[in-house]
């Protein structure tokens, strides 16, 4: 990584330089103030940079060298499924027939795009075991909220106005309770038991005729499969609630167990995780939602249907919750996901899950002697270690994460889930080789040793990155959120 401080683009600007080539103006010029009278024209120009094309390329190339992606090295960020992003996806998404089409063109002129969307839906229906899928939500959290709004509409249609509570486990992703709040529900937390699974007795205690839904990730955020899933489904369904599947961890169960067969009524998927979106530095994602039959009437509109004349967007859906996003979802990401699924096929999707789980268990067993493993059983695609043993020696999980940077790795997800002290959540994915896993494990073991012998090396890490630890308190106390000319 580049050690030199990279100036802001605004600091290398020079009046008179340009980086653009606009089409020739082939019509007569007219005085703008006659077209935009009465103060509509801005008096002060927006201070955008003035730089040449090479300046721009060098600037962003330098920035890219100060950034770690999956292509740079191992990225075992738990719950995020940082697998390899196939390059064919990028090529296909850039075909003019996919990239340069407008969402409001006549349907006859975009049948190829609609065919792709429809076939992707069909594939996702089979993969999840649901009855129908919408591609409209833009990301996982958006999918959660979409599905909760459908559940809300379902209960209201039944006259169940009292169903105001959504139950989430204490190990849930933060988006689950936040989505429930945005959808107008109150959140109830259900505890985990000593095995890291949902405590059935506590679940029975918190359910009632005010239960709208239980949101569940399976395997959960500890990487453990909720073995009592059928009983949980019957508890929720018994009180008239709906069971919601957070698909963040679908990579763990493809071809092994489908949400639809486990009793889930709806599911969101993160196409940028399981289906190689890619992650884009924080998005764009895509968060399709699958539902069982009794939620179909409430799907957001338009609903993509196949007729004898071709594909068609159906707006005539009287019970639909409405529109959750302009147009039809993050099509460009859906193209990539479709390309990936078609590259893998049924054998490939099965192998993904098997190798992802094998990799995770292998790492877990090799690291077990060196760190605390709060839940000692087969994990699925990820596992959670606790740094409490190291904490007693004065070294925090944060320190160990920072030390991993010196070895060229992105650290695991840390301090999540919340029900494990000093948590480190490790997800290797299936695209990493045994050699990569072994090298990472060796680094972790070395760090554990350093904690005992030379803790300051870990406490003062990182040592090799372009900057040292940053003052986050200062950033929050005196926020500087934009550049201003000195």
């Amino acid at each position, binding site marked *: 990584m580049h050690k030199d401080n990279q100036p802001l683009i605004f600091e290398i600007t020079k009046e008179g330089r340009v980086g653009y080539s606009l089409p020739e103006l082939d019509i007569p010029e007219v005085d703008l103030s006659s077209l935009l009278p009465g103060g509509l024209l801005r008096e002060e120009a927006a201070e955008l940079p003035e730089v040449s094309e090479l300046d721009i390329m060098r600037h962003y190339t330098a920035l890219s060298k100060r950034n770690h992606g999956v292509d740079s090295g191992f990225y075992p960020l738990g719950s995020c499924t940082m697998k390899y992003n196939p390059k064919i996806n990028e090529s296909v998404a850039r075909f003019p027939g996919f990239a340069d089409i*407008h969402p409001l063109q006549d349907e006859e002129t975009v049948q190829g795009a609609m065919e792709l969307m429809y076939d992707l839906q069909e594939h996702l229906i089979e993969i999840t075991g649901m009855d129908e899928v919408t591609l409209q939500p833009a990301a996982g959290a958006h999918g959660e909220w979409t599905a909760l709004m459908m559940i809300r509409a379902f209960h209201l249609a039944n006259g169940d106005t009292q169903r105001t509570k959504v139950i989430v486990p204490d190990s849930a992703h933060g988006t689950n309770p936040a989505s429930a709040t945005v959808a107008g529900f109150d959140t109830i937390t259900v505890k985990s038991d000593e095995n890291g699974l949902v405590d059935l007795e506590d679940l029975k205690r918190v359910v009632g005729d005010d239960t709208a839904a239980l949101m569940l990730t399976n395997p959960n955020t500890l990487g453990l499969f909720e073995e009592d899933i059928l009983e949980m489904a019957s508890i929720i369904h018994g009180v008239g609630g709906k069971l919601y599947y957070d698909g963040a961890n679908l990579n763990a169960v493809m071809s092994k167990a489908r949400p639809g067969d486990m009793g889930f009524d709806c599911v969101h998927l993160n196409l940028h995780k399981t289906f190689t979106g890619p992650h884009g530095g924080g998005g*764009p994602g895509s968060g399709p939602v699958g539902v069982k039959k009794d939620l179909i009437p409430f799907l957001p509109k338009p609903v993509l249907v196949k007729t004898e004349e071709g594909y068609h967007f159906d707006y005539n859906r009287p019970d639909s919750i409405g529109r959750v996003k302009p147009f039809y979802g993050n099509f460009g990401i859906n193209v990539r996901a479709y390309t990936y699924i078609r590259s893998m096929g049924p054998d490939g999707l099965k192998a993904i899950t098997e190798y992802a789980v094998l990799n995770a268990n292998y790492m877990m067993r090799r690291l077990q002697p060196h760190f605390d493993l709060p839940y000692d059983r087969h994990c699925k695609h990820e596992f959670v270690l606790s740094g409490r043993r190291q904490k007693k020696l004065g070294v925090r999980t944060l320190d160990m994460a920072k030390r991993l940077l010196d070895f060229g790795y992105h650290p695991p997800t840390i301090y999540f889930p919340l029900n494990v002290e000093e948590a480190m959540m490790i997800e290797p994915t299936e695209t990493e080789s045994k050699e990569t896993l072994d090298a990472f494990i060796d680094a972790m073991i070395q760090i554990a040793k350093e904690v005992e012998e030379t803790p300051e090396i870990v406490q003062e890490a990182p040592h090799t990155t372009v900057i040292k630890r940053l003052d986050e308190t200062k950033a929050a106390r005196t926020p500087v959120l934009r550049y201003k000319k000195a």
Partner: protein
Amino acid sequence: MKHRYLPMTEQDQKEMLDTIGVSSIDELFSDIPEKVRFQGQYNIKPAKSESSLLKELSAMAAKNADHKTYASFLGAGVYDHYKPIIVDHVISRSEFYTAYTPYQPEISQGELQAIFEFQTMICELTGMDLANSSMYDGGTALAEAGMLAAGHTKRKKLLISGAVHPESQDVVRMYALGQSIEVVQIPTKDGVTDIEALSEMIDDQTAAVLVQYPNFFGQVEDLRKVETLTHNANALMVVSSNPLALGILTSPGKLGADIVVGDAQPFGISEAFGGPHCGFFAVTTKLMRKVPGRLVGETTDEVGRRGFVLTLQAREQHIRRDKATSNICSNQALNALAASVAMTALGKKGVQEIATQNILKTNYAKKSFEAAGFDVVYQGSHFNEIVVNVKSSVTSLNKELLKKGFIGGFDLGKVDETLEGHALIAVTEQRTKEEIDALVQEMGAFRA
């Protein structure tokens, strides 16, 4: 199985199973109850090789009428603009696109600095104090702005102009539903927000007035009256804006907006059948701690070097959980990067020039339609869009235009029955004089 994305060998597998102490991969799944265990394989299409998949998907893509082949006069919120070639080269650097949210700032300075620059450029164009790192799109950004306003003012009513994009209006209503917020539409008059109606509708229960600038019909509304009425009622003024137009228009910030949102798609982002695009969200300092989504801030490291971090995270869902006011997590980072590159390439001069070209071309088209005897129904200041009365089915017209190599305008009858037979024609700097002249001629021929 062998696959180019899966490095596992038989030997690896054996060694790993030995280390774990199990004899088969299946054993690792023994915790999945028999009853829910999926048997066999998915009934989906078999895998295809790289070459044959490329062939199949390129044939599928070729079924679509794309804007490399057809001259598009379709806008309505999504535009065919100059996309500097350099944009794709930058966002194809996989250090950017294969990374995730910059949780570890020491190895994410590239992404963080790029976002900080994006935030700055959005502030410059909108005239606001701060901007976040992006939202899903303009529609959901507007909805979140409405939710913020309701939370901030503790009022439960939003007034939204009928000249806001109809799909964005739908999304605002959708978000409002969950929060039990009332959304009332302000009528339009001559293609702009009806100020008299607004003055009668606004009251002490109004959290915000939501307008679009330039609006759905391409009209550049005079926001000063909206501002006076809104702030007199102690409500917030929310402006949804096309950032490219702001290269030349007085910024909403200067006109008193409290929140400015919109979509950065006009800056280097593919139309891509409607997404992914890139919402933005900018506010005044007083609303800083209520902004949804991620913010990047400047700070220093232990030895005093400048660096960037995700900041003010106490607002966000992963900290506040059910107390969070927004659930947004992943946003549109890569598209924010694309927009940054395009804004940088255009720069201070280019953004004025491109906005000017759009105004000139729109007005050239307007004059041409009028000269050909068409009624262009709204007579204010235009940006990108004009409403042309074609006095016949826009759908039939568009079918004819397609045969001549054009993608015609948006059929306004689809969203407003009083505008049956009216086309919303979009003209950007990409359309040549020749194409505009030919379109007018073909539409004239169709009418005759």
